[in-house]
């Protein structure tokens, strides 16, 4: 994963709640054994509708997705994150996220930005009024800003995840640093526990 300090750019306003991972990447796309090439599958069912927001030319080359509550609920498929990244998104702003999606995002380098319901709604209206509005997400200060309209808000990310995003760290390496503790724990496991 590459270090991420700032995500800035145009925003796609997807004004829907409960966008589940089956919508983000339909199951037909999950048969691939690679980690790449999922961008074409992003929202592929909804993109068949000409009026769908991602099909609007004014939202081309956006780097941030702004959407409704409970984004990414449902299936654990990390392919949803890979599809968003492959399409060009680097951050998703929503009032809340599915837990697994949120976890997957920070492992793969997509920044999940949780804003208050009212803050997200304010930003949604602003983007809908001005599709070119530039938004800046600062992972170090944990802020979202739209300087042109004076919008500024804070968002939460736990210090460990923030550190990993800023440094671009592989957390398998971090866990393996506890190899002695893992071995010590294994020596204490009950002997009736099953092996496969």
């Amino acid at each position, binding site marked *: 994963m590459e270090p991420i300090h700032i995500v800035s750019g145009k925003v796609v306003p997807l004004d829907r709640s409960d966008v589940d991972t089956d*919508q983000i990447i339909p199951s037909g796309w999950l048969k691939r054994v690679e980690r790449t090439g999922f961008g074409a599958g992003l929202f592929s069912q909804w993109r068949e509708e000409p009026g769908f927001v991602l099909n609007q030319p004014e939202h081309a080359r956006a780097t941030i997705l702004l959407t409704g509550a*409970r984004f990414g609920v449902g299936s654990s498929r990390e392919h949803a994150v890979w599809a968003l990244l492959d399409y060009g998104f680097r951050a998703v702003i929503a009032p809340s996220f599915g837990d697994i999606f949120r*976890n997957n995002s920070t492992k793969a380098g997509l920044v999940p930005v949780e804003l208050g319901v009212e803050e997200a709604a304010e930003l949604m209206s602003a983007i809908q009024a001005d599709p070119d509005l530039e938004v800046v997400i600062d992972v170090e200060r944990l802020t979202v800003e739209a300087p042109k309209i004076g919008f500024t808000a804070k968002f939460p990310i*736990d210090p460990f995840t923030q*550190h990993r995003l800023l440094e671009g760290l592989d957390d*398998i390496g971090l*866990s393996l640093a*506890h190899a002695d*503790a893992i071995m010590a724990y294994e020596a204490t496991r009950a002997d*009736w526990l099953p092996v496969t």
Partner: protein
Amino acid sequence: MAQTLSEKVWDRHVVHAGNAAEPDLLYIDLHLVHEVTSPQAFEGLRLAGRGVRRPDLTVATMDHNVPTAGIDQPIADPVSRRQMEVLAENCRQFGIRLYPMGHRNQGIVHVISPELGLTQPGMTIVCGDSHTSTHGAFGALAFGMGTSEVEHVLATQTLPQRRPGTMSVVVDGELPVGVTAKDVILAVIGRIGTGGGIGHIIEYRGSAFRGLSMEGRMTVCNMSIEAGAKAGMIAPDDTTFAYLEGRPHAPSGAAWEKALDHWRSLTTDHGATFDKEVVFDASALAPHVTWGTNPGQVARLDGRVPHPDDALDAGERDSIARALSYMGLSGGEAVRSIPVDTVFIGSCTNSRIEDLRAAATVARGRKVKTGVRTLVVPGSGVVKEQAEAEGLDRIFIDAGFDWRQPGCSMCLAMNPDTLAPGERCASTSNRNFEGRQGRGGRSHLVSPAVAAATAIAGTFSAPEDLA
């Protein structure tokens, strides 16, 4: 200090305690692997020159892609075939036990692990699949994860995790006749919503859950994720122990007694508190049917589909209107008046022997309504064998149901079992998302008994509605 069940299991698996700046590092007792979310994880191991730390705590099967008909033939879809070949190759290379297509122990990962006795109380169990919450029915802490975390567990047998909140869902009293585990969990999700459990582990408590079989408890815990929860758990009791005793991987002899002593300690202490609590009266529950495009959009079978005008705010109005439009409903219909094209009985929610018995009891001596397509897909080779030994397959076939080979099947439409655009399905699965069972397909989640009755009547029905 008084602790909840989930806190006890969590604490017993902490390898390295975290702090404000760092999550706990949890040990994982069992890692379940399938073909869809693992190929990129194994590839990641190879690229980093890492191995699988505990292949003996890892088990794999093929479920999401497998066809449910003609499994003696080569798989027609070359992409599906390749994904299964890659799983077999990865299991060979890393020394992981695999139950491949055609093996009697093959099946849906969340069906085979309990059936083999691998799922036991107090364990931590993970899988690259959100319905891993199923295993919480045994008092295990079990949750789904993405492919990066699959790779993490393969490499380290641990996961860094922040401690979730605790949530208590109490259903006390006796369930009315005809109300099943599926109806209970649909009613719970209908009340707390698809985000009601986000960031929390739910513990299901109260006499209604105590009265459920292990199959019923698995149905409940399975759908915890549909309420957004990290996991769902039910404290183990004599029902749990009776289910486990004698299973291939369950302890035996002196080990069984030692295990039992430990398992009996896995209850929420008197005086322990939860971050969130909701309480239901079992006697007020009824069979439920989802009408919309998420599992929280659910109505009683004896009720009506809501109308956008019933909404409390503009956002809800919009989401009801969107769902009705997708589902081809106008709002206000009596649920019982809605005709279906297809009935699917299967999935990790409802494909176990008790589910098939419930459906067969309704199907016995009756005929599927002309024009209704039906699929009955057992959850595993073992469930299929047992059902056939009990003659359930004959009951289904005589009634006009299609009896299939085990797999995930129409729950997520990765194999050839899919809905056509506009096709309406009564499904015992867990997700009614847009396109979940096939592009443009319309899914309504129900219990096995309601699914079978609906197949006979052609419109949503309970068994007692049938002549």
